[in-house]
């Protein structure tokens, strides 16, 4: 085990996989000479050559479309979209093509590929460098959508994504890149796609979250334990699609209370799916209404620090307060 931050864990895992599998090619804007704006592929142009580390024109739909073609013909492309906010021109290629090729060909064709993209806010990125995009894509069967919150999960899920026979949208929360550190196995350990993880055990209430939001939940849970002895169980869904409902429901049945926390706009967000699953499957196990904490329903995250802070945390200690209120309900 080695302690790493999230960006280093992703870089090391991807480097390791590229070194071991010549089918893997990396393509995207600035991934070559610049090594990616987050320096994931720093130095790889020299190491792997320009055939495998491909600086593309600034055309996101083309990047994904070309990657689909590569995947259809024996390569294992890793398409990097520089910021998730810029993925929207590729929406058609991702959902009409990558996600539907296997289904529409009755299983004749498959598209093993990974689309990596940094998402999320809290980094002074304003409207177009802060977006949460997971729900758009998690809605379409045929695509797997993962979003790790820790360095070990990032490495293990990325390795699994590269072994998956179907397209995987790999979402990396930018705020976790350097802020979150943790032990990462030195070997090629896999974290399975589609399996949630209990990041903190507890008995009084279940908090379901993912991405950077999960760390706010962990922090609030620690303080609630210290302050009032409230024991919060925290479930990291890790994969938005397909969602591991069994782990979520098993925790909720144990604690009888559920709060769902996510950074994306609250309405129609992933929390809506998680909350409705709990309501459908575990209503009679609940001692209180499900609580949903999401971002405000405004078009995107504003730039000015007070405005951005409001998006991420509308009032001081809001997670602490919402969890505490639920615990006492």
């Amino acid at each position: 085990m080695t302690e790493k931050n999230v960006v280093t864990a992703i870089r090391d895992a991807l480097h390791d996989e590229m070194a071991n599998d010549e089918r893997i090619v990396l393509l995207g804007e600035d991934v070559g000479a610049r090594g990616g704006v987050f320096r994931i592929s720093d130095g790889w142009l020299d190491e792997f050559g320009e055939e495998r580390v491909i600086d593309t024109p600034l055309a996101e739909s083309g990047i994904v479309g070309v990657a689909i073609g590569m995947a259809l013909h024996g390569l294992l492309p890793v398409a990097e979209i520089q910021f998730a906010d810029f993925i929207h021109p590729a929406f058609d290629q991702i959902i009409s093509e990558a996600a539907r090729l296997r289904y529409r060909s009755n299983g004749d064709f498959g598209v093993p590929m990974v689309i990596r993209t940094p998402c999320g806010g809290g980094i002074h990125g304003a409207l177009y460098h802060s977006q949460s995009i997971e729900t758009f894509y998690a809605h379409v069967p045929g695509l797997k959508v993962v979003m790790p919150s820790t360095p070990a999960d990032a490495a293990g899920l990325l390795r699994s994504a590269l072994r998956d026979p179907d397209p995987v949208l790999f979402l990396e929360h930018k705020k976790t890149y350097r802020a979150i550190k943790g032990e990462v196995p030195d070997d090629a350990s896999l974290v399975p796609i589609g399996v949630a993880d209990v990041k903190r055990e507890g008995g009084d209430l279940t908090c379901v979250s993912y991405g950077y939001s999960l760390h706010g939940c962990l922090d609030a849970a620690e303080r609630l334990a210290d302050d009032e002895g409230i024991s919060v169980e925290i479930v990291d869904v890790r994969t938005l699609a397909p969602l591991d409902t069994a782990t979520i429901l098993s925790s909720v049945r144990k604690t009888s209370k559920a709060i769902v926390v996510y950074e994306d706009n609250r309405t129609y967000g992933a929390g809506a799916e998680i909350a409705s699953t709990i309501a459908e499957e575990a209503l009679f196990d609940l001692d209180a209404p499900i609580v949903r904490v999401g971002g405000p329903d405004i078009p995107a995250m504003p730039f000015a620090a007070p405005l951005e802070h409001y998006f991420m945390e509308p009032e001081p200690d809001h997670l602490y307060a919402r969890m505490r209120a639920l615990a006492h309900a």
Partner: protein
Amino acid sequence: MSTQVAETPHGALGLSTDDLLAMYRLLLTTRLLDEAALRQNRMGRAPFVVPAAGHEGCQIGTAWAMRRGSDIWLPYYRDLGVVLTAGMTPYEVFLGVFAKADDPSSGGRQMPAHWGSRRLGIISGSSPIATQVPHAAGIAYAVRYRGEDAVVGCWFGDGATSEGDWHEGLNFSGIHRLPVIFVCENNQYAISVPQSKQMAVEDVAMRAEGYGFPGVVVDGNDVLACYGAMKTAHERALAGEGPTLIECKTYRFLPHTSDDDDKSYRSREEVEEAKGKDPLARFGAYLRQHDVLDEAAEEELRGSAKKEIDEAIQAAWDAADPDPDSALRHVFQEDES
């Protein structure tokens, strides 16, 4: 010892009389199958069909230069002639028309004419326009990366050339000088929108210059001209000289689909005039002129093609429908076990 007095146009292209007859049979089969499919639609047995009539010359002319078994085909929905040339049979086409379980393209999941077959190297296509163009570029990239002896053919209509994906796919292919051929079947309409409202240029082909490779214009109703352009492009691709854009000027004789009414946007005079340049009739005349085909042989070809189509319709109609429960399958790869 025989004396070759003057080389024929097909001889100059390296085509034997057997080649010509096989090509003619494909044109004829495409036309007859197309008419038969539309009849099935009008009889209420097929909810939706996509006519190809008028495009046979450029479809079979270009496709004939491709090699079955090694080259890769990305046709669009009007490309009946391309997929028949690639090896799809009339029976397989009608399995798609009737949305049967054994439809090789999709098992009855997609609308008819959304071709695909791993076995034949035909990449599954969708309905959004031009999405296959960047796929063609990516496949061509993989072909070269893996050191394969293969060329990628990518077909589309004039409407596709307005899509961002079209430009992005051609641009990437030009940058990397990929072994791919782009074939535009320009029938002058994107459903109802005439070329003058799609682009401010005379020829789609001139757009290739913006991507750093040759663009050529051919008479899409001249099978041999289309074949010649494709043959040259194929040789360029194999020699590592990069992509070619071939624009075949042609015309669609029938509405866009069985649900379209082209009377609202094209005069009957215009359509009749275009039918005067019918690629099938023109190729037939060429073959008679060069003593490759006579009336008896023509009748025999027509009869055998019609028989094959009639049998295909009957067999496909009798084939099994998809099992409703199978609707949930193949979302992701299924376990081998």
